[in-house]
């Protein structure tokens, strides 16, 4: 399978990339790792006339701790997320999630920014960023702005990112050092998108849950932030009745498609199972 023809551009700065996208208009696509876009181009489901490759822009890559936040450059690869000592120390759920994305080869090329900005409901990072309260920094012809992950996703492949804007980095607040976390993903095989998946971050004190956040992957047209479910857990000891109620609240907001990963009812139930398992594992990791 051979993609259609296109012109290739490799700007050296975000400003140049934004100017190129403004000049080339809707016929231009951004190329990051390419592992979502290139398969679409090979099957001709996408036929951009121009590709603007962001790999030549050095300052889009990297992970840094700034105060009480971690900042991840958009072109940082999944492999780099897994290998990062800073992330492992402060927000280990990011590496845990990255290990469940695709396969080793794809994780060397696949980027964090591509995963969060593409708007594919099957991608794992968006629900995690909603869970963690990530903030996306984007730059376009009118300058830079920030969009909360929780406000970013509007539909399948439809996000708050305007054409011509580039996601440059994501700021993530560092959870309390004693937090518990887990990303649970049900998939048919290595490399598959989730049948259902759940990201959970909690804190505990004296046997009571003091905060909880839950994100759900691939059980709606967008990733979901299950805020009502999480609120039901705060103040409880994560006893069975409370967890049952939270699982039911999480299941209630899902609207999965029936597809080759199973009928909608099954995927809703699996979302509940993933929430339950993630809560158990997060609780076992939480200190306090």
């Amino acid at each position, binding site marked *: 399978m051979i993609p259609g023809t*296109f012109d290739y551009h490799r700007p050296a700065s975000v400003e140049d990339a934004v100017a190129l996208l403004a000049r080339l208009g809707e016929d231009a696509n951004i190329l990051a790792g390419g592992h979502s876009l290139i398969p679409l181009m090979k099957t001709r489901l996408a036929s951009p006339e121009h590709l603007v490759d962001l790999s030549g822009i050095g300052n889009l890559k990297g992970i840094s701790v700034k105060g009480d936040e971690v900042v991840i450059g958009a072109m940082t690869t999944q492999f780099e997320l897994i290998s990062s000592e800073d992330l492992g120390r402060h927000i280990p759920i990011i590496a845990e999630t990255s290990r469940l994305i695709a396969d080793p080869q794809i994780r060397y*090329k696949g980027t964090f920014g591509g995963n969060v900005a593409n708007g594919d409901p099957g991608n794992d990072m968006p629900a995690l960023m909603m869970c963690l309260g990530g903030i996306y920094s984007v730059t376009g012809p009118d300058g830079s702005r920030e969009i909360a992950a929780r406000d970013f996703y509007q539909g399948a492949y439809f996000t708050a990112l305007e054409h011509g804007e580039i996601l440059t980095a994501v700021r993530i607040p560092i959870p309390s050092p004693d937090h518990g976390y887990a990303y649970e993903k049900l998939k048919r095989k290595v490399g598959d998108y989730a049948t259902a998946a759940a990201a959970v971050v909690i804190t505990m004190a004296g046997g009571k849950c003091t905060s909880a956040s839950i994100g759900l992957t691939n059980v709606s047209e967008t990733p979901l932030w299950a805020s009502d479910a999480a609120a039901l857990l705060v103040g409880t000891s994560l006893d069975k009745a409370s967890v049952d109620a939270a699982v039911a609240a999480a299941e209630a907001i899902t609207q999965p498609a029936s597809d080759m990963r199973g009928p909608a009812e099954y995927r809703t139930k699996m979302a509940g199972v993933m929430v339950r398992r993630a809560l158990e594992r997060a609780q076992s990791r939480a200190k306090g």
Partner: protein
Amino acid sequence: MAKSHIELTINGKKVEALVEPRTLLIHFLREHQNLTGAHIGCDTGHCGACTVEMDDMSVKSCMTFAVQANGANITTIEGMANPDGTLSALQEGFRMMHGLQCGFCTPGMILRAHRLLKENPAPTEDEIRHGIAGNLCRCTGYVNIVKAIQYAAAKINGTPFQEAAE
């Protein structure tokens, strides 16, 4: 559509070429460079038969444009033998442990295992299986591929290779 000028190193040799931007790295290697060791299996990024080494990464060359490899250092199976022409530890492992039957997946398996052992010189069986999760083999059932990689790890590390009991 303008062609792009690329310069890269393939198996230690400097290569310059003019390529159409849409040329995939696998087609560039196989059709422009006559390096037909890397295979086109599924052509969709699932099977890993097209895996090559690119700047200390294992990449699927059917999902990478040649222009993205501009300036890169690439190794294919044609560059995997020892400088004196004898088999490298991984190649020897696949031969001794019967790590292949039809052989179609083997170049990708060996290139992937090469990077895996660079990053983790003494992997457990579980780490090997996860490490080659992006490479499909339809003949062997993977048992002998895992053994081949364990054989190579032992040889590289100078430790005895003990075949696991069935």
